[in-house]
């Protein structure tokens, strides 16, 4: 079953196109990552899904309903900024938003407790939001997004600005939400995060979806099964040798990278570069960052 479906959605600000015939589908229960550089159209896409902006063309359906004020009840959004009321307690923040979603009555207290427990804040229910750590505030923001039991959860940069420990906690929380059956659309600049969490990934560039699929499917987009990173004072020699071997080369920061069409043992690689002084050499599997850079460069 498809939870979210965009079909040839376009949007322009004045004469500047921001989304161009964007089509994508997110299946129920999956985590879909929307990636792209700044200005690619991610935030515009989210604004359209949340009915804060109207698309110029195309159709958007959430749980088979066209986007409208009513579909706001199907969506939970945790924005990039932690938008909570600092002088309210965790419980009061949740209750306030629950009321806005029309939740009240006897079932409300248990719903508040369930949400707080889901994000691990049960013991901080009566703490003022301003006294929480950054990671806890982000979790409270997530609890607010979950208060009305949405079918689709939109997470905009869910771990940006969090320390490593809080980031791991948030990742585990997102996985747990998926196990609970919630469909998740997330945007992130952290490719590591997308790689760890997402079932499928869409790469957005200048308002167009230039690649989409699972990590395994995306790996097929570049002619490499392994990346070798080398540091050497004789780069020209190393590149010449790689060219002889039909290994494409790229530069990632200070590292010179060769794309190997098939994995090799380290001793085989060293033999191939025999006679060239190597300061360091490292083998890496093909990762999302390699795919992303290549697709964005050529796409």
């Amino acid at each position: 079953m498809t939870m979210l479906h965009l079909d040839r959605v376009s949007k322009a600000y004045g004469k500047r196109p921001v989304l161009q015939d964007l089509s994508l589908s997110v299946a129920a229960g999956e985590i879909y990552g929307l990636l792209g550089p700044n200005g690619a159209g991610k935030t515009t896409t989210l604004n359209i899904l949340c009915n804060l902006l109207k698309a110029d063309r195309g159709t958007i359906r959430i749980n088979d309903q066209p986007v409208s004020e009513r579909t706001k009840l199907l969506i939970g959004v945790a924005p990039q900024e932690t938008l909570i009321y600092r002088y309210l307690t965790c419980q009061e923040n949740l209750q306030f938003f629950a009321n806005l979603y029309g939740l009240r009555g006897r079932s409300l207290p248990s719903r508040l407790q369930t949400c707080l427990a889901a994000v691990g804040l049960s013991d901080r229910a009566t703490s003022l939001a301003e006294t929480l750590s950054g990671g806890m505030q982000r979790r409270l923001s997530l609890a607010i997004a979950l208060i009305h039991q949405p079918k689709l959860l939109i997470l905009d940069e869910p771990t940006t600005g969090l320390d490593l420990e809080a980031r791991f906690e948030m990742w585990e929380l997102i996985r747990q939400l998926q196990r609970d059956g919630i469909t998740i659309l997330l945007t992130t600049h952290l490719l590591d995060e997308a790689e760890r969490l997402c079932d499928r990934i869409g790469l957005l560039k200048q308002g167009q979806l230039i690649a989409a699929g699972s990590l395994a499917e995306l790996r097929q987009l570049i002619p490499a099964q392994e990346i070798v990173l080398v540091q050497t004072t004789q780069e020209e020699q190393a590149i010449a040798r790689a060219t002889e071997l039909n290994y494409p080369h790229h530069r990632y920061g200070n590292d010179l990278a060769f794309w190997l069409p098939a994995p090799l043992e380290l001793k085989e690689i060293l033999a191939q570069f025999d006679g060239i002084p190597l300061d360091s050499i490292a083998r890496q599997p093909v990762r999302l960052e390699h795919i992303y850079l290549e697709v964005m460069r050529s796409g």
Partner: protein
Amino acid sequence: MKYWTETIAIARRILTELLRRKRSLIFWAIFPIAVLILNGLIFAERSKTALPEPLTLGQALQRAAPATLVGAALFFSCLGGSVATVVSEREQHTLKRLFLSPLSGVSYFLGIGLAHSAIAVGQTLLVGLTAYGLGARFQGSIGLAAIVILLSILSYVGVGFILGTQLARRTEDVNTLVAAFGVPLLILGGAFVPAFIFPKVLLDLAQYNPIFHMNEALTKIVDEGNGLAEIGAHFWFLVVFAIAMIAAGWLSYRRMLQVERRL
């Protein structure tokens, strides 16, 4: 029901946040009481030379209470408070989160109005009971006085929305706005200096100042026991002004929504 629930939720949130900041709450109470007592003492002292029979402190407070209420108390709580609420929501970006929910614009507008009306009722009781406790004895129709106070609240909240949505973008702007627009209007409205000592040119100018009409209407009701017939000019000015400000506040708010409705 949806609008009611949402309006109550917005009002309750604003009041809960205010109650949480106890120090601010205490200052909000100290300010009108201090102005009331100072105005009362000045009136009592001036009456010794200006009137054939000097006013007692109770009579002076009875005269000072209306100006203190609409000038010092309601102005800062309803106008300043509405501006601060809107600006703080914009500054902290919590407004964006509200747009993500099904909250209607009407409920948000009404919720802010309701919260500040509740604060205003509290301040009215505070000023009224303090003056009463010190000997003031109010006259006139309580209902008519309540309507004038309500019109004052609506006017202030409407102006608060206009300033908060159109002119102030940061919390610091609130003080400069209130100082630039508010304090001259308060003085010209007779909140701190009684209007009867104004030079003619200022008195003519004051006829266009809503605070002057709030002040005059309420003073004539509670101090002199006048009815609608005697305060008609002030009353109808206030009715028109309150309606105009609520309408303009609503339009300003709608305009802000168009700009701010983005993640």
